[in-house]
């Protein structure tokens, strides 16, 4: 457990709220180990209009003044695919959130990220929990700022099978070229893919435990969970709902609750059946092993971490 004596990790959250993105934002905001410098939004779970509004609503609800900048409305080279079945028409169906207090940043996602990196006196960690469009665009537009990025802790991909197609996980599938650029950027990456997130299963009992905390934020998160659980119960047989995005934040807060293996990762952009697949090479023969592929977690400690975070917020 990181002590208060250590400086918090400065992060830029790049997200497409999205129920689990929203919970990841809550976890990051609530944790003394993390300092959110900026939030940028991507399209995927819903359109950029909706994800940007949702991000602003969540931050407003949390009482945060962190700037929110709108990202690309579509992937680098492809048409957008979205996931209304999972996240609803608004992208955050479930709780009623008040209108945001603050306007969007005048800067684009890439501009705000570049500015944040330039102005930070320390290296910054990027935490993308949606498609990797903005991150790839940042690396392409400002390669001279790469050295200011300490690590990219992302939710996406899978060594074994997908969730949107049999071979591909949704975030990577939305923008495979962007993902390939990010994984091959040379920057250290923590890949919280389905290998671990399909083990990060929250049950209805966990939802009730959060609701029983009885504060504004814990109630809001419980309501997010209620909606999110519906899709997973109808379509999968996991015995719970995988809470994907918070894993990428939780790894930064306490990597000891996870297990990971080093690998080289390429992203398939061409195969008819396998576009969006993260091809994970644990042997390292195909390239530098800059990716920590997270493969397991201590579920009890993960849920306790979320519970603790929700208790700290009102």
């Amino acid at each position, binding site marked *: 457990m990181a002590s208060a004596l250590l400086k918090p990790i400065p992060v830029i959250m790049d997200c497409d709220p999205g129920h689990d993105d929203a919970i990841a934002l809550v976890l990051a905001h609530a944790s003394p180990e993390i300092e959110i410098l900026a939030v940028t939004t991507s399209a995927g779970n819903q359109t950029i209009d909706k994800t940007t509004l949702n991000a602003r609503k969540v931050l407003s609800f949390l009482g945060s003044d962190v700037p929110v900048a709108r990202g690309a409305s579509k992937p680098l080279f492809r048409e957008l695919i979205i996931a209304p079945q999972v996240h609803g028409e608004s992208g955050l169906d479930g709780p009623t959130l008040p209108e945001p207090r603050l306007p969007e940043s005048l800067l684009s996602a890439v501009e705000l990220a570049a500015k944040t990196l330039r102005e930070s006196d320390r290296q910054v960690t990027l935490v993308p929990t949606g498609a990797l469009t903005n991150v790839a665009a940042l690396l392409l537009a400002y390669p001279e700022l790469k050295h200011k990025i300490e690590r990219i802790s992302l939710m996406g991909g899978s*060594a*074994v*099978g*997908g*969730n*949107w*197609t*049999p*071979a591909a996980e949704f975030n990577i599938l939305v923008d495979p070229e962007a993902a390939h650029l990010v994984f091959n950027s040379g920057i250290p990456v923590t890949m919280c893919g389905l290998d671990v997130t399909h083990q990060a299963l929250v049950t209805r009992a966990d939802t009730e435990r959060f609701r029983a905390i009885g504060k504004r934020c814990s109630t809001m998160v419980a309501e997010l969970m209620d909606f999110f659980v519906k899709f997973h119960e109808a379509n*999968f047989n996991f015995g719970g709902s995988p809470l994907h995005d918070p894993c990428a934040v939780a790894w930064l807060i306490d990597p000891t609750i996870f297990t990971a293996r080093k690998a080289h990762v*390429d*992203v*398939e*952009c*061409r*195969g*008819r*059946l*396998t576009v969006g*697949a993260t*091809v*994970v*090479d*644990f*042997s390292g023969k*195909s390239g530098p092993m800059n990716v920590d592929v997270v493969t397991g977690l201590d579920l009890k400690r993960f849920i306790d971490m979320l519970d603790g975070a929700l208790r700290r917020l009102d």
Partner: protein
Amino acid sequence: MKKRTILIDCDPGIDDAIALLMALAAPKLDVIGITSVGGNVGLEATTRNALSLATLAGKHVPVARGMDLALIAETKRAESVHGTDGLGGVRLPEPAYAAEKATAWEFIRDRAAEFPGELEIVAIGPLSNLAMALSAYPETRRRIKAIHLMGGSAGVGNATPAAEFNILADPHAAAAVFQSGVPITMFGLDVTNRATLSSAGLETIRAFGGRVIAPACAMLDHYLAAYRRFGRDTLALHDPLVVAWLLDPSLVTLQPYFVEVETDGRYTTGKTVVDLHGILKRSANAMVGVELDAERFIALMTKLLRSYDESGSAKDPGAGR
């Protein structure tokens, strides 16, 4: 007792060799033919090896030559694992007979016509011959009872990070086989990588001695050395698992899945895309091995290889089908 009618399509190859020797020793299996394919090594070598193995086993089983090269893709070989001759340099008896005049795909067509609804094909090499037979002779499709193949993986590959060798060696053929509608049992790396034998285990088998066990263990010495060069300390008996399962289905747990093969990925060519979560909502086209009992598998393999030296079982090479 009604024997099962079996045709083995193979590219011996050390683990193919063990699988062949097991099948030829099994009283419950009537191996009516062997078809050779280029794969681990070239067709000339795999054909000669199949003939020599049948001769070693004392069985006159017809061997028909098939495809040397993949249907469309570039040729892949695995001499680094099996040696340039395909058997790790182990000398086997000269073949007691010659290969058939018919090609492998004509042979498969003819045997399926002879045993409609009964013929089961054990496919333990690249699937080039099967794809040829199924596309050239469409009526063959309906006549084949099942294809039990060693190939693919629901997880990571071995030849490349995404693909297992047999499927990588001819991905288009594999795609055609999985699209064919013939019932498929797929023994991929998910189970075969766990069908392991250690150096100590190999010594236990070698200690039994015998006219088949001695050369089999010599081949496995070479095979284990190759695995060690790849950083493993045990060898995996991929092809033999298929034969063992035929004789004892309780050895492997199977689950039905819809499976397709990627033929044109930059990194994923040869990947068997297994729809583990039923996302596509398509009917299953294969029973896929997911769990195995490795200890009982090794015991069954050992028993079959030893049976060549049991009294009264010196097989007459003239005793065919």
